[in-house]
């Protein structure tokens, strides 16, 4: 695209796609903003009126909001830590030559293909159930009291379930990064006297930093909006102990029929997500340059 003419042509040709995407985003966003300034309850249709920032006031002063905010950050952070550390270790393992490598790699990625609701239900009923679950069975076999995971450690349980889903994604991206590492660099560092740990810290990890950045960025986007796993396991409870912002918005607008309050919550969530995005870009975006 060297000449002014070809640049203009390029802009012209790309504009339909840009306009479509823009409209796709702008219409729902502006409707949400509009609703967020209305007193709009589904139980009282036709009573809508403009109430300014009252919805925001209510949402932001709701104690459930701070609990949900903390839960969201814990959920995102916890899953990121588990998937990145676990993914790196798994990638290191899978990078070793062993018999049946192809099949094992397919098996490793399998959890990613399971729908969130399905995997959450499987975890809830087959593993974590205090009566019929596998963990309860093991606990009883060892003579211990079965632990009711979803009742006593709801957020941790959800973190485990979501991490289990995202581990394959992280593993796969990190494995490809690992495989693109120049073998001569490893050999050179071996000649230079670096042991396995040194090679990992000084050669492998810096090489993987870009892939790790990508994993963090993509996962954060999706993890901020985890919903299905919470809905089918704990319903955000007990109390608000496993409610994240997404679930809170759902509860506000569809369980309490308060569309105005839900919209305000949605806008708050959008702003929060953008703050997180700015921080992420600041912190690790420089890894993506050059």
């Amino acid at each position, binding site marked *: 695209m060297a000449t002014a003419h070809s640049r203009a042509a390029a802009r012209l040709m790309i504009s339909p796609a840009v306009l479509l995407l823009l409209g796709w985003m702008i219409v729902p966003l502006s409707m949400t903003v509009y609703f967020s300034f209305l007193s709009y309850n589904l139980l009282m249709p036709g009573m809508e009126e403009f109430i300014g920032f009252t919805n925001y006031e209510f949402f932001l002063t709701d104690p459930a909001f701070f609990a949900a905010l903390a839960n969201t950050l814990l959920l995102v952070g916890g899953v990121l830590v588990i998937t990145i550390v676990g993914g790196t270790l798994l990638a290191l393992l899978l990078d070793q030559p062993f018999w049946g490598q192809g099949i094992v790699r397919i098996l490793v990625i399998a959890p990613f293909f399971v729908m969130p609701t399905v995997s959450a239900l499987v975890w809830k009923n087959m593993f974590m159930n205090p009566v019929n679950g596998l963990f309860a069975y093991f606990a009883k076999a060892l003579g211990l009291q079965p632990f009711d995971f979803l009742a006593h450690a709801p957020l941790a349980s959800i973190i485990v379930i979501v991490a289990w889903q995202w581990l394959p994604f992280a593993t796969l991206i990190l494995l490809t990064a690992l495989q693109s590492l120049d073998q001569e660099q490893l050999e050179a*560092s071996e*000649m*230079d*006297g*670096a042991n396995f740990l040194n090679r990992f810290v000084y050669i492998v990890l810096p*090489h993987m930093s870009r892939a790790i950045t990508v994993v963090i960025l993509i996962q954060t986007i999706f993890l901020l909006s985890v919903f299905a796993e919470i809905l089918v396991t704990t319903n955000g409870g007990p109390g608000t102990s496993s409610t994240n912002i997404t679930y809170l918005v759902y509860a506000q607008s569809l369980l309490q029929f308060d569309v105005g309050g839900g919209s305000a919550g949605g806008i708050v969530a959008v702003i929060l997500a953008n703050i997180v995005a700015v921080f992420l870009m600041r912190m690790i975006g420089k890894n993506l340059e050059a």
Partner: protein
Amino acid sequence: MGKISLKQVTKAFGDAEVIPPLDLDINEGEFVVFVGPSGCGKSTLLRLIAGLEDVSSGTIEIDGQNATEVPPAKRGLAMVFQSYALYPHMSVRKNIAFPLKMAKMDPAEQERRVTAAAKVLNLTDYLDRRPGQLSGGQRQRVAIGRAIVREPAAFLFDEPLSNLDAALRVNMRLEISELHQSLATTMIYVTHDQVEAMTMADKIVVLRAGRIEQVGTPLELYRTPANQFVAGFIGSPKMNFITGEEAARFGAHTIGIRPEHCVLSTTDGTWKGKVGVAEHLGSDTFLYVTVPGMDPLTVRVQGEAGVHHGDTVFISPVAENLHRFEANGLAIRQATA
């Protein structure tokens, strides 16, 4: 420091034997070049010495100590890789200091050695750059710098100049030779380029299919090649080989004559032929002459030849520079004339 002996060393990858039993002694301070066509096992041999590959059998001794089972880092050898293998996320300074850091050397001493190496290699102005910001020759020098600071018993070079352009290659060749003179450390250098081998080596090891064909100084190999393979591999342009009746006249299965040992005449001579392509290099002219009943002969004439495409010329070999070979390729050693 720096004496390396290989005793009955073999290497097999699965069923494929890459290196059949091989003995080799490399003396202290020698510049040894392993040369051979690609796939001849020269890089594998170097990696065996480095410890990056395990030998299948046999022993490797470094300075009289059995080093066969010693891990690469403990062998006291430094290697320069074909791709340079610099660490892209570290500055030049950190790259060069890396082996010292791994050896947990005192930071002040590290800095002193890095500065000294940078000075020798003209890298002082680039110490804070990343490898990605350097030219090919500079990267090469960083890789050498990383090897020097360890003060190793021997340097191993794996085709270090093959990624450089022709002019730079000549420069780096001189720099490495210069370095060898000043450090007087054993160097083992792998290349497929016989010009590099001839110009740099104290001792050349010619390899083919993992077997040592001949070991000797560059001029020994040039003057008295042990067999037809070495004769054809060493020297540029390649030696001319003539078989059949002409060779039988000299009592050999094959005779070889180097292009520079052919005398060109327009009036009379041993073989009569037609000039094909003439390459004018200024200092020399290479003529490709087709002689009936033989493969085309390459003839090297000093200066300008004054003959052109299609001219009829006569070529005579210089008798004392004629090489004779048996049917199995071995050289016949008795004087010819």
